[in-house]
């Protein structure tokens, strides 16, 4: 049980005797379906409530119960919330993976484990804390069936004692977690206490990791990206929602249902100011979105890669027939029988050009839960202003993990519904031409079915029409229309959210990233500055098509690293297509595609290696 210092296997992993405060990763290894989620959330929340920045990442299998799952909590006084590769504190609850889990961690780390697993036989360079879970759980949980569940709360107590998490915060977090279920809260609290007391008596502190109160989370919230996007959609005034269940997207619509039932029921009639439909599949889901968008609703669907593929034909129709709609793509590793519970940014390229023919689609790339909220709102405005399907490209890491954030700001701008002509407009104008580019921005005016004016009706189809929406196969009508659509995409370029740029002094090297890579990148930028004296500019893409600002960024740097969480450098490819030809050679790729969220060290190492190679 004693710590044995051994010669470090790797230089940077060498064990130092100093205390490490508010800077560690806790990994809890369990099997899924064992109810450990509650214990993990309580631990995460308790640390958060102590004012320490945290993030939690759940690595779960594509099955319902019985397979290994890992939950990692990172506490970071610097506020880093990216995944960290290294584990400092392991809670080994899963006999099946315990040996490997123990083998993989750095020397000097600590291991809390079920004493029957005898893990301390495995290594000499770790701190081992054996816990007799069965013994502890029996007295606090008389109902044998529930013990499996309650065991988990015991490790919360043990970890709390060992790391210095305040038990009042555990208690508060438990209350929050269980809300009105007082009995369950009580049971779990007793278990946590039992763990705490055991550790107090039997587990002398032997590792160097500590958590102590600070004040860096005051006023902040914890939420996952899907819930944040759901809130965004609700405050965007969404009226028609269609979906088909798919991990990791389901929770977006499921959370939306909860919120809408609460906040979007007409107070007088008690009727819903929305319709949410679980469709029979993704083809139907997108079809309903287009039908609803055509008829004037703010319509959306949410899915993941397989659904995006199935929506291809319809999305192309949406592009050509110019119908608004918002599609959330919570990206995961492809294909369906791939790794559906692992994160990826693998749909970027195929979504940009989704569908046959000359099609291209605006995409927004939220990096944070705040942006899940604000970009959901922006996406609805864009879709209606541009009259085209708009994609919000989130991912499993953002969508399903819990993130710390500032509370979301209430939208300032009123809802922008684009160029829709009412009965009164038509009375004034006398007539309208659906596909005439009156304003030079490529966007025509539309009417909605049900508009009580004889000139309101028009016939919608793909590209086979002239400016008046009359059937036409004439070559010129076709090219005119296609050129207008191209013009509209140039309008999109100006309207989508601009990138977020942090300029370094030298302007020698730049980095471009998007979505969840952001968190690893900001940490890597610090590492590069501190460890390698490399000061690098950063351009965080927030949308496709790229604004001129992105081209300028590439223009004024010598080398630009593009970070992609996919194998094929998908965003880098899109940039290659869009940057000035002479700048293409500046682009280099940093790729990460093992299904785990990106970590800062991988980015740093890759840049350092490529800079040295140069």
């Amino acid at each position, binding site marked *: 049980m004693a710590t044995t210092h051994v010669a470090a296997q790797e230089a940077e992993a060498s064990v130092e005797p100093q205390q490490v405060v508010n800077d560690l990763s806790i990994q809890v290894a369990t099997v899924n379906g064992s109810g450990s989620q509650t214990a993990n959330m309580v631990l995460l929340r308790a640390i958060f409530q102590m004012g320490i920045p945290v993030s939690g990442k759940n690595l779960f299998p594509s099955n319902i119960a019985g397979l290994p799952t890992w939950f990692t909590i990172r506490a970071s006084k610097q506020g880093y919330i990216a995944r960290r590769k290294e584990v400092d504190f392991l809670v080994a609850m899963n006999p099946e993976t315990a040996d490997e889990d123990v083998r993989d961690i750095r020397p000097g780390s600590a291991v809390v484990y079920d004493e029957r697993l005898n893990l301390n036989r495995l290594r000499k360079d770790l701190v081992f804390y054996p816990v007799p879970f069965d013994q502890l759980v029996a007295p606090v949980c008389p109902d044998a069936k529930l013990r499996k569940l309650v065991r988990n709360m015991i490790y919360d107590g043990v970890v709390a004692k060992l790391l210095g998490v305040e038990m009042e915060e555990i208690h508060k977090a438990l209350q929050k977690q269980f809300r009105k279920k007082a009995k369950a809260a009580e049971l779990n609290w007793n278990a946590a206490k039992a763990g705490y007391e055991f550790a107090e008596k039997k587990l002398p502190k032997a590792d160097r990791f500590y958590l102590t109160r600070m004040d860096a989370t005051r*006023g902040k*919230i*914890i*939420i996952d990206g899907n819930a944040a996007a759901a*809130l965004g959609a*609700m*405050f*965007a*005034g*969404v*009226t*028609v929602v269609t979906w088909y269940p798919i991990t990791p997207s389901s929770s977006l619509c499921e959370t939306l249902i909860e*919120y809408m039932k609460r*906040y*979007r029921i*007409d107070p007088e*009639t008690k*009727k*819903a*100011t929305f*319709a*949410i*439909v679980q*469709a*029979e599949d993704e*083809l*139907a889901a997108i*079809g*309903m*979105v*287009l*039908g*609803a*968008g*055509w*008829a*004037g*609703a*703010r*319509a959306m669907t949410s899915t993941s890669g397989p659904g995006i593929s199935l929506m291809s*034909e*319809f999305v192309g*129709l949406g592009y050509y*027939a110019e119908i608004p709609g918002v599609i959330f793509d919570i990206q995961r590793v492809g294909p369906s029988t791939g790794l559906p519970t692992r994160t990826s940014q693998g749909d970027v390229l195929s979504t940009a050009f989704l569908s046959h023919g000359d099609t291209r689609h605006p995409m927004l790339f939220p990096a944070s839960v705040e942006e899940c909220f604000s970009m959901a709102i922006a996406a609805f405005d864009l879709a209606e202003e541009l009259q085209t399907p708009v994609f919000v490209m989130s991912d499993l890491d953002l969508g399903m993990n819990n993130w710390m954030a500032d*509370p*979301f700001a209430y*939208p300032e701008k009123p*809802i922008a519904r684009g160029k829709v002509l009412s009965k009164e407009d038509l009375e004034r104008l006398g007539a309208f031409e659906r596909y005439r580019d009156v304003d030079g921005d490529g966007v025509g005016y539309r*009417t*909605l*079915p*049900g508009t*009580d004016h*004889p*000139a*309101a*009706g*028009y*016939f*919608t189809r793909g590209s086979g029409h002239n400016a008046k929406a009359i059937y036409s196969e004439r070559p010129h009508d076709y090219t005119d229309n296609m050129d207008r659509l191209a013009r509209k995409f140039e309008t999109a370029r100006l309207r989508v959210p601009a990138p977020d740029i942090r300029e370094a002094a030298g302007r020698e090297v730049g980095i471009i990233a998007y979505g969840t890579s952001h968190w690893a990148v900001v940490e890597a930028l610090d590492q590069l500055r501190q460890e390698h004296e490399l000061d690098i500019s950063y351009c965080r893409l927030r949308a496709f098509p790229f604004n001129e600002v992105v081209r300028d960024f590439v223009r004024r740097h010598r080398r630009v690293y593009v970070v992609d969480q996919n194998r094929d450098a998908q965003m880098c490819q899109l940039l290659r297509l869009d940057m000035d030809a002479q700048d293409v050679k500046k682009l280099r790729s940093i790729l990460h595609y093992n299904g785990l969220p990106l970590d800062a060290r991988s980015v740093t190492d890759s840049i350092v290696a490529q800079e040295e190679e140069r």
Partner: protein
Amino acid sequence: MASTATSPAPPRKVNRIGLEIHAYKGNRSTLCAGCGHNAISERIIEAFYELGIEPYRVAKLSGIGCSSKSPAYFLGTSCGFNAVHGRMPSIATGTMLANRTLLALGVSGDGDTASIGIGQFVHLMRRNLPVIYIIEDNGVYGLTKGQFSATADIGSKLKTGVVNDLPPIDTCALAIQLGATYVARSFSGDKRQLLALLEGAIAHHGTSMLDVISPCVTFNDHEGSTKSYSYVKDHDEPLADISFVPFFQDITVDYAPGTATEITLHDGSRVILKKLGEDYDPTNKVEALRVLTQAHDKGEVVTGLFYVDTKRESFLDLLNVVDEPLATLPESRVRPPKTALDEIMEDLK
């Protein structure tokens, strides 16, 4: 003899909302002369004219095929959406979700429905969404030049000599089994029956599914196919003659009392069935399926209103959406106030 005074125009014939039949017409058809689909378009024009429906209230939705083009040829001032192949049901669903005050008229073909589109068809029927779903059924893919669809009869032969050896899908039997609440079959050439069925469908509140045998004169007018004009003329076995009584008119239809089953539709209008030969009760699902299954096995075409259920709630009722179109609710009703966001944020702290 020459007079400069213009003689008063003869009184125009108008319907109850003051519109001439012209207001219900569309572009000139580009379908083949004699195509059954054109006859159906004419009946649609008549039905909407007779019932005095404002054209702006109608949304015409279709998939792809000769049949799916036909919405351009009626109700020219209504909005229309010619979508993708086999997916009209989802477009119709979205449209009605966005605006429940619309009258959705979906037009599809047998290929569009029974082949590529059968999945969306099944689920639309199951939902009982308020929509009129017309299959212009010719047993072939007209627009792609005459391949068999899934409603082609066993043993029918293409001009190329290819013979169909798979059983046809009976869309009426399916619709009934799945939950549609107004299910009928007619023939494009049977003006009276089709018009009555269409008017009943317009008045019905829920999914109305009309399978209309509509011969393709170019690719399927040959012996062996029940969808050819001659076959239907010979074998058509009308199950029941129905006459529609719109609720805004006096009952003027003449029918033999005592042999009638009267059904009251959601809007108060009624459909009256004249019994022909047998005592057919269109509220009996089991019986409807029996009739259809036996006809199917015999390769017979039975026409009439097979099944109607005026009680089952429509999908929009189940969803409990507000009465106004969701599409145009004002911001005040679709964006919750700042206090709501504050409350939620507080809860997440």
